[in-house]
């Protein structure tokens, strides 16, 4: 989006010393306006007011010498930063549920973890008490019964090859 297009959407007026932008709070949430204003306090004196319902006026007065071109540029930069802040706010809103979920999960998983630890401790006592390394090895697994119908002959029970 070009600066001209932006400035068509965000009306501003300047009087040679300061520039004022009037913003619709339906389009630009209050938090986004405050966030953008915050980033300009090192360059300009910033003042916010409410000229009407759901409207916020942002007045920027540069701290140094200025002229009309600089004021227009300042307004354009503010408009661009405002878009960044709107995006930040929108992403914050859209990911809010996910953050809440992870917070809840973090609290919940503490309890779950202790339950898992308890179960592992019980297993250690019952099954792995005599295993120093506590590693399951194939030679310790019980062999299947030789007379299992679906399985082939056990080793050693095979018929010898015919001569």
């Amino acid at each position, binding site marked *: 989006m070009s600066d001209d297009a932006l400035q068509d959407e965000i009306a501003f007026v300047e009087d040679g010393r300061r520039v004022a932008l009037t913003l619709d709070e339906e389009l630009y949430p*209050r*938090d986004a306006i*405050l*966030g953008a*204003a*915050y980033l300009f*306090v090192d360059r300009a*004196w*910033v*003042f*916010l*007011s*409410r000229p009407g319902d759901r409207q*916020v006026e942002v007045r920027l*007065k540069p701290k140094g010498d200025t002229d009309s071109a600089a004021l227009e540029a300042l307004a354009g930069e503010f408009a661009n930063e405002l878009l960044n802040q709107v995006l930040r706010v929108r992403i914050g809103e859209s990911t809010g549920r996910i*953050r809440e979920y992870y*917070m809840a999960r973090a609290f919940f998983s503490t309890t779950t973890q202790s339950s898992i630890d308890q179960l592992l401790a019980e297993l250690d006592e019952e099954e792995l008490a005599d295993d120093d390394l506590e590693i399951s090895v194939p030679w310790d697994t019980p062999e299947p019964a030789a007379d299992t119908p679906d399985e082939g002959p056990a080793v050693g029970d095979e018929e010898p090859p015919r001569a």
Partner: protein
Amino acid sequence: MPELMLHKSLYDAAVVHQVARLYEGVATIAVDEDPHAVTVRFDDVDPDVADVLVDHFGNHVLVETVKQANAAEQVLMGDSR
């Protein structure tokens, strides 16, 4: 006497009072509240800072308001940054 009207939906009223106390050394400051706005009046202004006092005060309240809002949000979200 300079005067500044800060809308409560944009500026934190408690912050306005806090910042007003910080500026007591350079002016006599009276803070009045109504349901919608906080009005700050500056009297006996130190001539050295008269030009920028109101502007400086406005920026100061804005910065502290945003910081306060961010701190509150981080507490709510459990953000430890």
